[in-house]
């Protein structure tokens, strides 16, 4: 539709056509660029602050370029900063997050794929109801299950552990991944499955040989979405883990909320950057897929 609008040129103007068009373009690009600057500003501030020595922060402007560039704050955030009473830096928590996020992403994506396959290609009576049950799980305010989940993890002996967090993220992640895969598989013609059945393939064979190879894009969407969600999660992390088992986000929040002594803003910003880099990288590399995951809950099909 952009083309249709671009083709439309007003004819009745007093100003010369070219000037008017240039003015129009300015009115479009102007706000877009201002907005872009506003959106980039916090990232810019985080980066420059993390590269400044502390004295420059207290003396200079928070938005300007550093006069002396130092990676000291990054080093401190990574291996020295105090989280509670432990001064280990973010390193062990980064590992925690990786240990949590990788199995949780793989499991939830795999289960979502097979669920989506069943709910579209092997529909059984009540399949739609099952889908509705799962779908509501996407919109669950997690406060409503915090207390029972904490009790259950305790009963299972998973309280405060990384496997416990993996379980929580898989349980609620299934809802999203099933939604992704179901909406993707709905657009694959049913005749594909029928043709494979006539060819003699069974339930699992059709999944492996016919369906899964066509679903690379949605696998990427699902993995990216789950990775971002789980990596960025704070509520489950802070509710179900403590001390050395916490994920990144919890550790970051602890560093930032330390109130003793002179506030180390450069270390805070470096720590925030370290927490942000994995998801930012994924976004930069595969932004297109990220957007698809984002809009999956809204745009039909």
């Amino acid at each position, binding site marked *: 539709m952009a083309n249709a609008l671009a083709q439309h040129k007003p004819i009745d103007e007093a100003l010369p056509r070219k000037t008017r068009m240039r003015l129009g373009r300015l009115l479009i690009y102007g706000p877009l660029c201002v907005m872009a600057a506003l959106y980039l500003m916090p990232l810019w501030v985080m980066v420059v602050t993390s590269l400044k020595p502390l004295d420059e922060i207290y003396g200079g402007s928070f938005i300007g370029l550093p006069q002396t560039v130092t990676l000291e704050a990054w080093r401190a955030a990574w291996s020295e900063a105090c989280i509670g009473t432990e001064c280990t830096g973010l390193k062990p928590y980064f590992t925690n997050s990786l240990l949590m996020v990788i199995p949780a992403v793989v499991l939830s994506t795999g289960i979502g794929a097979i669920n989506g396959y069943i709910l579209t290609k092997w529909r059984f009576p009540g399949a739609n109801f099952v889908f509705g049950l799962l779908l509501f799980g996407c919109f669950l305010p997690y406060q409503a299950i915090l207390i029972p989940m904490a009790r259950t993890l305790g009963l299972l002996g998973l309280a405060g552990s990384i496997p416990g967090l993996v379980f929580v993220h898989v349980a609620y992640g299934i809802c999203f991944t099933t939604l992704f895969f179901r909406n993707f598989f709905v657009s694959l013609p049913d005749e594909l499955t029928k043709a494979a*059945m*006539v060819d003699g*393939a069974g339930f699992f*064979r059709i999944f492996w040989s016919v369906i899964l190879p066509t679903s690379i894009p949605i696998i990427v969407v699902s993995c990216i979405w789950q990775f971002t969600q789980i990596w960025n999660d704070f509520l489950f992390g802070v509710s179900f883990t403590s001390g050395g088992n916490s994920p990144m986000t919890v550790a970051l929040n602890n560093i930032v909320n330390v109130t003793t002594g002179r506030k180390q803003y450069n270390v805070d910003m470096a720590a925030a950057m370290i927490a942000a880099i994995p998801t930012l990288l994924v976004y930069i590399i595969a932004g297109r897929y990220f957007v698809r995951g984002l809009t999956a809950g809204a745009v039909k099909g």
Partner: protein
Amino acid sequence: MSTLEIDRVRKTYGSLEVLKEVSISIGTGDFLVLLGPSGCGKSTLLNMIAGLENISGGEVRIAGKVVNELSPKDRDIAMVFQSYALYPTMTVRRNIEFGMKIRGVPAAQRDKAVRAAADLLQITHLLDRKPSQLSGGQRQRVAMGRAIVRQPKLFLFDEPLSNLDAKLRVDMRTEIKRLHARLGTTIVYVTHDQIEAMTLATRVAVMKGGVVQQLDDPQTVYDRPANVYVAKFVGSPAMNIIPGKVEIEGGSATAVIDMAMRPAVRIPGIQLSSRAASRYAGRKVLFGIRPEMFSVGNGQAQGAISVDVDVVEPTGPDTLAVFQLGGVEVTARLPPKQVNARASAILAVDRSKVVLFDPDSEELIN
């Protein structure tokens, strides 16, 4: 031997009856076309023959063997789908040999079969491409190749040409006919296109509302449709159905059709069995007259009718003339430039081919 018998087959979804006791039986080498509008149950019936849908009642027998409980792979069938259903991530070659791989056919034999099928369909040069790199017609050929390598007892086609453009559709139709002549396999073919049915079939089953309206060879379906529905569905433009009256004069039947502003039209010499003649003498009936049964006549000929032509539509080889007859709009297929719009014309009717329908049951009167 590869006969197909569909014996009082029913399909219900809950209380909804989609197929009502359908019985069709065809012999080895027959080309059966299931013809009907969408929702008539023809695709459901095909899926039931394939084993892709459960059979609610009755029996399907392929080569004399009941297949109701068999899964598709055990029915010795192959199927070509409307969307072709090519596996998008596999090359043409892997698409064609996928079924053989599952059945554990050795590689050398697979390769031979793929080559033979590709040769037959002239797609050898496409074997290493992906479906997305093929045109519609090429995809269609690959889908047929996938079916051919199975060497099944029964080929099933589900509207295979409806995704092609008009020109290609005609070409592929010829191709399918040639293939049938070459392989001699029994075929069941679903379509809503009556021309495909006429050109391809040895047997046509016209379906409506889950019931077979008529099962015959195509020419019979065309010449002597079993009821008004079939008469209107087969043929384009459709058969004209004109209300009128039968009068028996000296042992021969005459059609009497009322006209609005003129005296009633009388067409003597209508073919009618003596039993039907005695039953319908003096009664109202529906006359079925195909557009090409009209010809340009002269005023003296017996049974010539005078009409006011409303519209003419030249199609190239013929001209279609539209006029009122017996209170309904009637189309005649005439040679070009013989009649003019908004002028009167004298037409003759090929009386030997006129068919009669009962006005209440709309069934053919024999």
